[in-house]
């Protein structure tokens, strides 16, 4: 039998292949350019603003003089996100528990899942508007704009993220573990608290940290709920300063020192968000369920 000639690939096809593969590579590089540029400019323009006084003084709000630092913005953001976390994580994990342990594939559970998905698509400014009508205008708690109302708006934003990620993680807990515990006579609530949650713990932490990272960076929900302040107030039932709002206001100032502060603040915010993201990834990687 004569050796059959393997058809050679025509130059045209070879050229097309090289061209298209080159385009795919180029496309990937193009995708990375914005990231590199953003990091570059953040470092170039933001690092210069970083100084001890930047982090230890508040924005003075004075028109001509020293604009001050961003201390109250950082503290305010941490406070408001902390409260938002305290609201959204328990509720989110609770709903996820319902979906995985009790609801499963019932029509009710599927409806809840569907609408949680809907919530992830809602533009963040809508949550701010909602809280504005329901809490701010109605003067709930005796105040107009208040820090805790911003927390509620952020919690609404973080909730679907927590629910979705928690559900995925809880579903990964092997049913055999649950069944073994139940077979040993443990009541349902014990199974959940002593078996399911601890097994899923690192995944839940990952999801929570990602939600927190998201919450820290959001501006729109805070616009109409927390408004503006300069000093550290510490009182969540009052207007407070937050880092995203501080940056947003500073961007629109014509003063170059204040714009420089915006860059410094932006770098700080990105670093904070990245820390949460990096820790979340590290937790996830360490405890990959085989």
């Amino acid at each position, binding site marked *: 039998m004569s050796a059959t000639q393997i058809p050679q690939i025509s130059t045209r096809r070879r050229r097309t292949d090289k061209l298209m593969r080159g385009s795919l590579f180029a496309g990937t590089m193009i995708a990375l350019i914005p990231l590199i540029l953003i990091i570059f400019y953040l470092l170039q323009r933001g690092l210069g603003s970083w100084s001890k006084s930047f982090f230890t003084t508040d924005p003075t*709000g004075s*028109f001509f003089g020293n604009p001050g630092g961003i201390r109250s913005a950082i503290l305010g953001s941490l406070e408001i*996100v902390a409260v938002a976390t305290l609201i959204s994580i328990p509720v989110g994990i609770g709903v996820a528990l319902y979906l995985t342990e009790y609801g499963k594939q019932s029509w009710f559970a599927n409806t809840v899942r569907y609408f949680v998905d809907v919530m992830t698509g809602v533009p963040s400014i809508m949550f701010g508007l909602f809280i504005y009508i329901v809490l701010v205008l109605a003067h709930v708690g*005796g105040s*107009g704009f208040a820090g805790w109302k911003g927390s509620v708006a952020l919690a609404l934003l973080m909730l679907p993220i927590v629910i979705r990620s928690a559900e995925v993680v809880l579903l990964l807990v092997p049913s055999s573990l649950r069944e073994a515990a139940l077979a040993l006579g443990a009541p349902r609530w014990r199974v959940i608290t002593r078996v399911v949650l601890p097994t899923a713990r690192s995944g839940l932490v990952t999801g929570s940290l990602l939600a927190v990272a998201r919450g820290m960076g959001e501006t729109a929900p805070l616009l109409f709920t927390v408004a503006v302040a300069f*000093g550290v107030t510490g009182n969540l039932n*009052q207007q407070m300063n937050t880092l995203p709002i501080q940056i947003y206001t500073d961007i629109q100032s014509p003063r170059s020192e204040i714009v420089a502060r915006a860059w410094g603040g932006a770098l700080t915010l990105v670093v904070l968000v990245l820390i949460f993201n990096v*820790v979340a990834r590290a*937790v996830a990687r360490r405890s990959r369920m085989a």
Partner: protein
Amino acid sequence: MTIRRISAFATAVVVAAGVAACGSSSSSSSSSGTKSSSSSAPATINGAGSTLAAPIYQQWGSTLKSQNLTVNYNPVGSGAGQTSLAGATVDFAGSDPALKPADLAKMKGPVLQYPVAFGAITVSYNLPGLKSGLKLDGSTIAGIFSGKITKWNNSAITSLNPGMSLPSTSIAVVHRSDSSGTTDGFTTYLSDVDATWKSTIGAGKDVKWPTGTGGKGNSGVAAVVKQTTGAVGYVEQAYAIENNFTYASVKNSSGTYILPTIPNTSAAANGITVPPDLGISTINSPNSSAYPIVSQTFIDTYKDPCKDGGATSSTASGLKRFLTYAFGTGQSTLGAGSGQLPYAPLPASLVSKNQAQLATMVCNGSPVL
């Protein structure tokens, strides 16, 4: 295991920082000003509104902090300020235009307005070669801002400025995108001096601009003017000075070209009639040495902030202290001197009228301490 500890620690840090910040009271910024003898109980008041006056309130806020009075001011524009007061989400509104009956109708109760200062609205431009001396009159300005005059070397502008070489750069108009008292002042002036403007665009806190980019607040307009060559925008003087803008001298009602200096701004307040509700207007003042585009700015509060504005009695006291300072010691921060804010202070007659009006402020019916 370590990573879990770290992540738990990270979350704990967030929560702890929150709690710690809750525990700390208001910031201890070193006060460079003299400590006033009247350091009363600490109070916080919130205001929002005019960006024209924002530099003033922000400066006063800085000073008053050492007297245990925290003033948070959100410069969102006069329109938004009035809306916030109507919603009682703030204790005072900064508003450049006087309150009209329609505005008063939206409020929860009777509102008192106190004139606080006068600021010149400059016509600032960004032409690197042109450092000073540009003259403009009302109809030319109207032509520029309505989009009819599109280049800097247009005959209307060159005829007013013989001997000056103007480039053929396109004019980039910058106006306000938010509801603004500065816009109200500027467009009132244009409506007064140009019949076409009055009939087509008119005056108001918001108008439909036929051309140009919108900037948010006086600072937003200033920022856009700064970034765009060939831009022209109307900004309050403090912002123009802060950014080293060049601005035009404008023809006033007597036909003279006036630069917006502090004396020329003060001149606008001389000889105006003061209605009983103190709702004055200094636009296109008849005074012959006055700069024609001078805006007044008010602080508006409820006559009874406790009943109508939901304020506590300590907030009402704080409000009263703020207002007393505003037309008292605060006035000395305004003027043409070095270290002063470039606004014209109130004439003595208005100060006494303000004080008389302040005495009528009550808290749930009883006088405020």
